[in-house]
């Protein structure tokens, strides 16, 4: 099954990746070559096979429900491209 130009534009929006028309075209060609490779999987019978998400089938470890993070604002906030008064700055989202 081949991807369409619309698919590439939709996925780029979902992934928050700006692309121009030339990039969308070449992305479409590349992705279709890669997805042709993936089609090999579809012929395999996996009806009775459970999906494997962890190599050792280990369940997520649980811990006590208490705060473990300390306040690291002074360390972390200076890494932000824009901040002011201890807050991250982003473009206005509410009119």
């Amino acid at each position, binding site marked *: 099954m081949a991807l369409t130009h619309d*698919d590439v534009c939709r996925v780029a929006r979902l992934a928050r990746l700006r692309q121009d028309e030339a990039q969308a075209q070449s992305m479409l060609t590349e992705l279709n070559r890669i997805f042709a490779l993936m089609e090999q999987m579809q012929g395999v019978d996996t009806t009775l096979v459970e999906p494997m998400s962890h190599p050792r089938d280990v369940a997520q470890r649980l811990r006590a429900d208490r705060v473990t993070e300390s306040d690291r604002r002074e360390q972390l906030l200076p890494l932000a491209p824009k901040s002011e008064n201890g807050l991250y700055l982003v473009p206005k989202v509410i009119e």
Partner: protein
Amino acid sequence: MFQLSIADLSQCLARRECSSVELARLFLERIRTLNPGLNAVITLDEERTLAAAAAADRRIAAGESGPLTGIPILHKDIFLAKGWRTTCGSRMLENFIAPYDAHVVEKLDAAGMVNLGKTNMDEFAMGSSNETSWFGPVRNPWRLSAVPGGSSGGSASAVAARLAPCATGTDTGGSIRQPAALTGICGLKPTYGVASRYGMIAFASSLDQAGPMAKTAQDLALMLNAMAGFDARDSTSLEREPEDYTRELTRPIKGLRIGLPKEFFAEGVQPAVTKAVEAAIAQYRALGAEIVEVSLPNMGLSIPVYYVLAPAEASSNLARFDGVRYGHRAAEYTDLTDMYERTRAEGFGAEVRRRIMIGTYVLSHGYYDAYYIKAQRVRRLIAADFAAAFERCDVIMGPTSPTTAFELGSRTDDPVQMYLCDIYTIAVNLAGLPGLSIPAGFDAAGLPVGLQLIGDYFSEARLLNVAHQFQLASDWHVTMPSSFAA
């Protein structure tokens, strides 16, 4: 001096034949003079390095040193090292200063290793040639027009050129083993969960694993002793008793059952690679090993499975790069969405964008079951093939890479060709098994060939034993590129 293994350098330090500061200066000087031709190291901080070396010398003087104390090391730039610029080979993190240490870095620091600097890598570890780095390609010291492999290409090239005695790497689909093979060094990917992923910038979280890169199997064992261990900050870190990975090094090979999967010796392998691998296996036979034919019938599916699962996990992991909390932010934008889109389009290179697109697509509504869940099911079949093979043998051997190092630029136009570089390494990550590459000869052009050793879960000590015994009987691992030997 720069040719010596960690084990030998450690002896020199213990006998006071050299100091850690002298070693640090020696390797910093080699980096200064030789790195410009390789582009293997992208960040240095001499002051920090020399301070760490001086601290190691004090520990040695106080009689509080271990086998790694005072030994210089380079870290792949995927590991956070507090106060060091950590870029992951990306424009997105070009000016990012790590606010804390990765668990692996913390452990190696605690063992007294001296951080020499950070190595170049494929952007976000996505690549098999080290050509996707924002900081430019790395060159192979055996032939400067060839790639060193990837994604831990900077670490591999640096160790091969003896710019450092050892380095850290990470392996998601072959990123330690393949560059180790292409540059003639040793590299180990441990069992998934043995080394903590905390502070290691995430690519594909169910596959990523840190491991050591060095000149000898014995050095890998010494490094793994410090790198391995449970860490509550990584939810997939395994709670196991610590083990000494050097404990089996001296065990004789006699009686070892080597499994040879016929799929590893199929079409598409360069004859020189097959020849070197077969010669190495003949040497094992001479040492008393038995050969067993095994089969991994689903191995051919590992590439399609990997290129669904790894991009899916990557698209999720890389969603954190939004230009708000850290990293690059576009200079101009109209609103929040526009800021995200421009920031990410500018900050990520072509291969990373491609993989985010694949991952976003296979996780999107209507395709999740057909691709993502399907790939997870086939993943289990691939793991089951290995389980069946290990009923009949102790270690699986074959080539690490189907070819020796290829020319820079020769595969960059064709992502599918590039993905096929990892045909022999990817299945090991999908199954979560340990895998090791050691030098096993050269092709006619003088480029190194790697022999891959794959073991059952937690068999690192045995794999290192099997590699070490080969190195006692061969000298491929001590051969270095002559233009860097002066």
